[in-house]
């Protein structure tokens, strides 16, 4: 690892001008081709979608969607979180996820959840480190990858006292 070197990791927002960076990342990180709605949601989520830069190179991203439940309560759905293979293990994923967790805390959002393929043990243990738990299993969630099942992984953030 680049221990002892002055390596800077910074986050930047996604705008239409640099949307292609997110598309490039997704095309190599995930087996799925995301549709236009994915990118519209990501842009609409504002600060909840971020690109991670390692020494000014775009190497990872987190893309979220803000969902309003019938009760009017907002929750965060993490659509994708990924870092390019050579740059893993450098704390970039952690930085991206922490950003979303902190932002949710600040905005009094109590629920963050995502889907994980059932065999993706690395991802499951990664999220567990941050207090996420498996809350549901959905059979045949994916159509073109095996196994087709997924877990719903959720983190509930205890609401701060300011909630009136």
């Amino acid at each position, binding site marked *: 690892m680049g221990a002892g070197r002055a390596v800077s990791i910074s986050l930047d927002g996604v705008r239409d001008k*640099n949307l292609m960076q997110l598309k490039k990342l997704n095309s190599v990180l995930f087996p799925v081709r995301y549709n236009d709605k994915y990118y519209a949601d990501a842009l609409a989520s504002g600060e909840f979608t971020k690109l991670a830069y390692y020494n000014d190179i775009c190497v990872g991203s987190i893309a979220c969607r803000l969902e309003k439940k019938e009760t009017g309560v907002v929750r965060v759905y993490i659509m994708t979180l990924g870092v*390019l293979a050579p740059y893993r293990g450098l704390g970039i994923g952690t930085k991206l996820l922490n950003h979303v967790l902190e932002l949710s805390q600040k905005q009094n959002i109590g629920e963050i959840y995502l889907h994980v393929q059932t065999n993706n043990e690395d991802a499951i243990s990664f999220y567990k480190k941050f207090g996420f738990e498996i809350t549901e299993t959905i059979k045949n969630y994916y159509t073109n990858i095996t196994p087709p099942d997924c877990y719903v992984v959720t983190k509930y953030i205890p609401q701060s006292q300011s909630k009136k």
Partner: protein
Amino acid sequence: MGASLPPKEANLFKLIVKSYETKQYKKGIKAADAILKKFPDHGETLSMKGLTLNCMDRKPEAYELVRLGLKNDLKSHVCWHVYGLLYRSDREYREAIKCYRNALRIDPDNIEILRDLSLLQAQMRDLAGFVETRQQLLTLKPNHRMNWIGFAVSHHLNSNASKAIDILEAYEGTLEDDYPPENERCEHGEMLLYKISLLEECGLLEKALKELRKKELKIVDRLSYKEEEVSLLVKLNSFEEGEKLYRVLLTMNPDNYKYYEGLQKCVGLHSKTGEYSSDEIDKLDALYKSLGEQYTWSSAVKRIPLDFLVAEKFRDAADSYIRPLLTKGVPSLFSDLSPLYDHPGKANILEKLVLGLEESLKKTGGYPGKSEKEPPSTLMWTLFYLAQHYDRRGQYDVALAKIEEAMQHTPTVIDLYSVKSKILKHAGDFAAAAALADEARCMDLADRYVNSQCVKRMLQADQVSLAEKTAVLFTKDGDQHNNLHDMQCMWYELASGESYLRQNEVGRALKKFLGVEKHYADITEDQFDFHSYCLRKMTLRAYIEMLRFQDRLHAHAYFRKAAAGAIRCYIKLYDSPPTSSTEEDDELAKMPASQKKKMRQKQRKAEARAKKEAEVKNEEANVGVSKYGKRNVKTVDPDPNGEKLLQVEDPLMEGGKYLKLLQKHSPDHLETHLLSFEVNIRKQKILLALQALKHLVQLDAENPDTHRCLIRFFHKVASRPVPTTDSEKLISGVLEAERPSFSQLHGKSLMEANTVFLEQHKDSLMHRAAVGEMMYCLEPNKKAEAITLIQESLNNSPISSNGSLGAVKEWKLKDCVAVHKILVSTFDDRDAALRWKKRCGEEFPYSTYFEGSLCSTQTNVSKAEENGGISNGKIEKLDAMKNLAII
């Protein structure tokens, strides 16, 4: 002014002048009309009304009124002055000068007119006149600083620097001891530095140095002071003092290459060629090591040693130079090092070195001999460097493999796509290069540079309309690409013109090339405002430098390209004039000769009429262009596609205009004289063609094109009919006298000379092609032999020091394309051309021109899609992006 009028009208006249100066034109017109009601023939009022209308974009009326006014009052300096101003506003400086002179004949001491005249004289470089006018101004108003300075500058420009010094010293004599006051210290300091630069120019070095030091406290610009001092010291051979001063300057800016060069000169370690003995290299090495310890942050001090070090020492220095930059991720590293590829042997050392780094990074994650791990991006930057390295060496397959590996590693780095695009361009696949540049562009829609690069690649691939659409994304909203012309975006106009010329759209090409030529006229024009500004602000050194720059403006490479492009267009127009319409031609062909003649005459008359009408329209349209009028008036280009440009009477004469500029400003370029030869041989100007030929032989006798011209010229001359007129006899006499001056032809027939040339250059493709072409030209029955000669050329690998790692072959894609064109057009031999194409397709597998096996137009559909293709889908995507870019 207005003296002949009664008091009421005289006051109105003053109002016109005031309204003109304050740009309240409507008010001025009203006042003028009030006078003219009573005195309809009053000359000065008519003139002033005209001048005012000129500013309201009513040019034809303006000229009419000003001329009428002058006619009514020839003795009025006002009328002449106004006439001059009118001409000046249309950039007709010569006419304007005449008018001012007439005005001065009536009122010799009119300061305003004198000042206006002096500005025009400076602009037109009427230097003797400039000196005279400035002298008059100084005599009339010696208490004005500007008049002293102007007089001095005029003498300097008129190549009399010592006189200029005298004047400045006389001016200083008029100043008090405590001069300058606090608010004029900068101006005064500039004047002193200017005077010292004049002393230096006159070779009075010691006096200059003495003066400089004497005035040290009065010179505000400390850096210029020191640089001037050190320059004088070096010229006076005071190297010890010079060295000290250069070291002081280095502490101020340790990245200025000039200071390092100066220091090297002072310590006797400088060579113009950059070649040094091993003893000198050791000394230089020691010098830079000690400087490097002093200036740890300087990159110049680390980079310069790579220029003079060789072999092992070079390797070590390069190693420690490159490593931190790869770690940091400096995309420009290759361009930084690329000059080293011209030094013998260094490319090989760099190759081995960086390959070593790559291997170690892949195995251990760190540099050789280091336990510390590198950041993951280091490997990507290393691959990025290697790709550019192999591109430079012409090994495009390796280069592409490296860049693709880098893209796999980190697919988000835009520079990777740009470089891949460049490699493909060099390898000859222009369509794929354009597609990749577009991919790079899409990755950052806010980056004008990647946008421009993409536009350029599209133009190279002759996708002109796509290029226009892309370029427009970065012009002002709503404006079409005409905006690029207004922004003087010359690279775009040149690339676009060249693309049109390749596609045989001569009108559009001409439009672009002439557009660039116009920019240079505008730049010349732009200096006008500085004649008064610089004298007032005392930025004299910069002013003189600007004037000298303007004097050699047309030597600039972009102008050369534009002028050469335009001349080529005109030659093309001459060789194959545009046919009006095929139907008409058919009809013409059927008619008997006498009728044909009548028909032609009719046509010519009709054309002339149409032309006149077009001109009138043009003028109407151009009314809004007035430079001094409102700038924001948009005019519609009456000829956006350059169709009118095609209708020139005499294309070669048009081309001759630009040829003259090339001959004057770029006499050292082979192309200038090649074009001159082509134009003049067509015009049957034998002696001018001979002159061009002599320049060519003098510049580069071994060049294949020179050889072509030589043979063609004497072949043509030999077939001339026996001279009958005096001038023809004269020409023959000159030719006879000149022929012996071509040593190539001594005692040889042209065919023999051709053979000798082949013997001298038999390993070079382009020389063989020239010889083959000339063989066919001299003896058309030797066509087969000539073609065989060209086809038997071999693509050798040069046996040089660079050959050890991966063979780089000699043939250049560009040359092979040229040979193919010769086979098609000159020899008109389809089979031979086809054979050549097949062979080159193997030599250049990425070339779209030769349809090589690896080029994008040749491989299967899926790949074309992946590269973006040039299909409709592409344009849709672009439009989608356009919406985004405007927000």
